[in-house]
């Protein structure tokens, strides 16, 4: 049996890769890092780029493109937490501003203060409607 380490590449939206590998290289923020089995525990951020995973019994390396994330090396396990979106401080900031602007737009014609009585009355009415429909169904 070849000397291998378990590699899991996961993103928030799906599991991308899981299996044994002889070697894995990742574009870490401080430069590319290569991990062989029995690597010391390490954790680092990674930049957008390609992961290279060398599987046992194959000459070629598997390439997985990721848009950044984190690389964690535990004894016997390498985990890549891949981002699903290109991240960057400015980009995140822009998105946050857009979300805020959208809220401000929606808030333009809001009432001055939260009207709990109105809110609860409205919801109670909706619930009553649903219950009435259910009751009606049962009697049929």
């Amino acid at each position, binding site marked *: 049996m070849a000397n291998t380490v378990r590699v899991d590449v996961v993103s928030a939206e799906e599991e991308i890769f899981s299996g044994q590998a002889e070697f894995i290289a990742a574009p870490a923020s401080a430069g590319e890092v290569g991990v062989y089995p029995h690597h010391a525990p390490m954790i680092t951020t990674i930049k957008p780029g390609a992961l290279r995973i060398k599987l046992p019994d194959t000459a070629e390396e598997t390439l997985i493109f990721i848009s950044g994330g984190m690389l964690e090396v535990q004894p016997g396990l390498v985990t890549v937490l891949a981002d699903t979106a290109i991240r960057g401080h400015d980009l995140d900031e822009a998105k946050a501003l857009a*979300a*805020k602007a959208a809220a401000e737009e929606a808030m333009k014609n809001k009432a001055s203060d939260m009207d709990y009585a109105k809110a609860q009355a409205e919801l109670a009415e909706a619930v009553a409607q649903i219950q009435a429909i259910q009751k009606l169904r049962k009697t049929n």
Partner: protein
Amino acid sequence: MAGSKEIRTKIKSVENTRKITKAMEMVAASKMRKAQDRMRAARPYAEKIRNVAAHLSYTQPDYKHPFLIKRDVVKNVGLIVVSSDKGLCGGLNTNMLRLSVNQMKTWETEGKGIKVSAFGSKGLSFMTRVGADVQSNTTGLGDVPHLETLIGSIKVMLDAFESGEVDQLFICYTKFINTMKQEPVMEQLLPLSGEKMGSPEGNWGYIYEPEAETVIDELMTRYIESLIYSAVAENMASEQSSRMVAMKSASDNAKTVIGDLKLVYNKARQAAITKEISEIVGGAAAISN
């Protein structure tokens, strides 16, 4: 035949309604399966990141990330409300909003300020209508949740927490229990409690690159994002199954209504025929006499 034409038109129109609800039911059923798969697909990442975060907070006791620090005085509370973009899904949004409003009222009586972030247009329109302080919103999530579209709103709330504008952050969404059962839940996101992360398996020191603080900061943000993402994914699965059930009962209803109408129609038709026969018989008897 009085009214029989009207009854026929009525039956037709109910049949058409039933076709639509039936189609919506089937669409929701297939979407639900996909949404459930996506909900499950998000789990490995959440598990992994939780493990790593637990490890880090365990091995780095001297660096406490702001997300982990509990504040003594809670003046303002942040609430993320996850709802659906579309209606016709039974009591899903209503139940979730009822839970939020009740909780908000409790906070209000405790003298806490509330800042809301709305995901999904149903929650947003409700919150603006009742005059809540909506800080950020993301609508038009579609059928597939993407972290990319959520990041903006999440960041607004995380920034608010870091800058001290809010001292606690909660999320309210509908938990998917099974196809027939969905339950609205309210969970605390920030500050993170140690129990939620659990204790790590094994104990080893990490090599950090570039340095521990940067790595932990990045990781914590992603951890919270993954929690919110899972909540949104779960809410979508709940939405589809709730819609499926609602549309199924609508179709069943239409069926009983059609049955009733057909009975009335047949009665009217039979009455007309009987009347005609008795007229003929009466007429024939009058002539022969």
